[in-house]
């Protein structure tokens, strides 16, 4: 349960001949309860990778599978957190979180309990009856995360989830996600272009090349995190000051920089 596998995956947009090749031979395995971040220059196809796991796009060649089964359509075993939240504006916070549970035909009592614990988990109890437009961006993203978590999905897919938030809120949400990952570890595929975010959150960071996107390098952050005991620092800025963190970040930056400069030429 809960692993993701990309096996020789290509993606071409447009006509079969003469289309744009977005992804070229992607191979990646994400283990049970592992948090993997994909970073890459914009337009490299990292979001497309996530969308194929979600079942929104099909690979042009190769196989994307989750827990050993090839992905064919979207489903609640693979919950998605979108950059633009994608909450239903006409549903209250509670109703947004509850929809997936209703789709699973759970009895009302059980649903209420699950929604209550999801609200508690994301510190949303006082906003249960609010509508999305009455909430700040950070709060809306909490709702979207609660909506995903409440499904108890095999894998959690996060597509630049904090990209639309302001810097302060972003930091709070990053810390929150680390806290969540400790309380309730999940298999997570996390897409971002923010290097610090990837290093701070992920067990492994996959670096992609510019289009057509290929996986250039995969760095094991977890080993360093454990060896240097990052988790004893409750604040993100303290972790970001650590020499081991800075070293990793710089390493990824350099790798990405090569892609960017190649792009300019």
């Amino acid at each position, binding site marked *: 349960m809960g692993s993701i596998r990309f096996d020789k995956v290509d993606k071409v947009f447009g006509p079969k001949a003469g289309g744009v090749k977005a992804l070229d031979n992607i191979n990646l395995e994400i283990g049970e309860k592992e948090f993997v971040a994909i970073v890459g220059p914009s337009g490299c196809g990292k979001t497309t990778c996530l969308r194929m796991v979600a079942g929104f796009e099909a690979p042009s060649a190769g196989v994307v599978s989750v827990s050993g089964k090839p992905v064919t359509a*979207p489903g*609640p075993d693979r919950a998605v957190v979108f950059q633009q939240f994608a909450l239903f*504006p*006409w*549903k209250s916070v509670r109703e947004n979180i509850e929809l997936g549970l209703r789709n699973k035909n759970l009895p009302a009592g059980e649903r209420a309990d699950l929604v209550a614990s999801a609200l508690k988990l994301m510190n949303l109890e006082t906003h249960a009856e609010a509508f999305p437009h009455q909430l700040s961006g950070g709060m809306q993203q909490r709702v979207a995360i609660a909506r995903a978590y409440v499904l108890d999905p095999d894998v959690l897919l996060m597509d630049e989830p904090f990209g639309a938030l302001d810097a302060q809120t972003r930091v709070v949400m990053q810390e929150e996600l680390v806290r969540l990952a400790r309380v309730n570890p999940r298999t997570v595929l996390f897409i971002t272009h923010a290097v610090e975010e990837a290093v701070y959150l992920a067990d492994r960071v996959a670096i992609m090349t510019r289009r057509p996107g290929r996986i250039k390098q995969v760095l094991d952050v977890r080993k360093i995190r454990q060896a240097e005991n990052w988790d004893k620092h409750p604040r993100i800025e303290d972790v970001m000051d650590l020499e081991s963190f800075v070293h990793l970040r710089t390493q990824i930056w350099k790798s990405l920089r090569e892609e960017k400069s190649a792009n300019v030429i």
Partner: protein
Amino acid sequence: MGDASLSLRERLAWGAFGLVLFLGIWTFLSTSGVVPGPFLPSPLEVLNRIIRLMTNPFAGATLPQHLASSVQRYGFGVLLAAAIGVPLGLLMGWFRLLDDIITPIFDGLRFIAPIAWVPFAALWFGTGIGGPVMIIFAGAFPPCLINAYRGARFVEPRLIEAARMLGTGNMRMILEVLLPAATPSIVAGLRVSAGLGWQSLVGAELIVAAAGVGFMMVQAQANVATPTVMAGMLAIGVIGMLIDVLLRQGEGWLRRRRGLEA
């Protein structure tokens, strides 16, 4: 717009000015003898006639009674159009196959003016309630369907993706995602439907009815009772405006509830 800075008060004042000017020219044309008497009754005559028609029946009923029977048919026709057009539009917006089957037929039919159905309305339903309702339906149906369809087709793709990843089935997708997302578009369509339906109604009543404002006007025309014709026209205009104001209120309320407007 250059005049966007006008205050509400100024705009109301200019509106009143336009109305007074209009009534002034009308009065002048009808009382000065430029236009012979029966060809253009004066505003005062029309007002007097309206007052008389409130209690004195003409063509079998008073003006309020004629209006009541018109509004009743109108209500039936528009409700029927909405009850069929909106669900069908949503279904077509979600099921591509249904879209492919219905769109060619619908695209042909919708260019037939509602009044063109009059011969068949008369043949099929006579002058009872069925004939006018059918004409109103023909006028009100296309905007209901088109707007529901467009509303459903142009739902933000992210919301549909979110609903799909939450495991939402077709029925719930239509009722809880497409319908609410399309509601502003549907309401705008209903407003157009309401206007077209009201216009079609009076056209229908001129021909296939034994009561209603349109019927009253045709009877008045036969008797050269021009103030009565004009009274009917005025009543049509005022009721049409009222319907639109009510629907616009409803639309505004919906938008505010959604947080689309402060």
